[in-house]
């Protein structure tokens, strides 16, 4: 799998993401700066990592969504490329219009730094094929604005077309509509999720509940290559 991680000023989860990807593929992902103007040739996956790009100025992910390389990411997605956005990356995907809806401030107004449990709502995507349908797994939340919101029409479409990939099981601490933790594009190739699977790939630090996501990706693109 050939993966690239895009780094913005204020991004802080790019190294955790790189460790997770390298762990399953044995190769280091390309680290790209947001001012770069081109993606490497032959990419399988672009990752927008977590953090606080541009200090969350204006709205979380709003500035990053307008940065030069994001235009290339949009073109990559339009060509059928796979894009994963985690936490701030999910916010960027929504701000960039690659996924519908928006992430509001947590309903509690509190920054949430704790584990959460998610249920896999569909296991037939490259991101979730490492899990069983309906399987629950743990990941870490670290966000102030993870309260997924969309209008009623969009919500009906997401649910009707089964584009909700992950849902909080147990507590829905950020107040997301329908307890949505992750959503997919209609072609199932763009996924945004708030919790951090890359934090859970090492038995010594936080467990390995996130590992199947990366293993599934590695297997998907092993056969593709």
């Amino acid at each position, binding site marked *: 799998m050939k993966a690239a991680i895009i780094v913005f000023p204020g991004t802080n989860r790019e190294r955790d993401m790189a460790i997770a990807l390298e762990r399953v593929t044995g190769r280091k992902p390309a680290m790209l700066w947001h001012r770069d103007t081109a993606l490497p040739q032959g990419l399988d996956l672009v990752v927008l990592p977590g953090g606080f790009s541009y200090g969350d100025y*204006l709205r979380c992910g709003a500035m990053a969504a*307008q940065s030069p390389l994001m235009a290339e990411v949009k073109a990559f997605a339009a060509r059928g490329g796979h894009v994963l956005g985690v936490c701030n990356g999910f916010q960027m995907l*929504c701000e960039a219009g690659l996924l519908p809806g*928006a992430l509001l401030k947590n309903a509690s*107004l509190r920054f949430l730094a704790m584990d959460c449990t998610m249920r896999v709502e569909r296991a037939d995507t490259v991101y979730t094929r490492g899990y069983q349908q309906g399987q629950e797994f743990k990941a870490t939340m670290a966000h102030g604005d993870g309260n997924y919101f969309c209008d009623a029409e969009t919500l009906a479409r997401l649910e009707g077309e089964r584009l909700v990939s992950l849902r909080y099981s147990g507590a829905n601490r950020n107040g997301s509509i329908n307890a949505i933790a992750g959503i997919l594009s209609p072609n199932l190739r763009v996924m945004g999720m708030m919790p951090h699977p890359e934090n859970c790939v090492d038995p010594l630090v936080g467990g390995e509940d996130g590992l199947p996501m990366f293993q599934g990706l590695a297997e998907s693109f092993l056969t593709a290559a």
Partner: protein
Amino acid sequence: MKLRVTVMPKNGVLDPQGKAIQQALGGLGFAGVEDVRAGKVIILDVAETDAAAAKAAGEEMARKLLANTVIESFTVEAI
């Protein structure tokens, strides 16, 4: 000329900041504050001198960046 862009959470969109302000006002003894909505004001100083053209440009800026129309509404005024 200057433009004032006012960005507000849309009706029906949860506004936890507004709710927190409302509760804090209640805590300070200001009774009867029935609802609070918190948004932001952005002042732009633009070179354009024609008010209608400046306003149209401001609206385009709001649609593209200053507001997220999924969750926010905006107004643009020449001031």
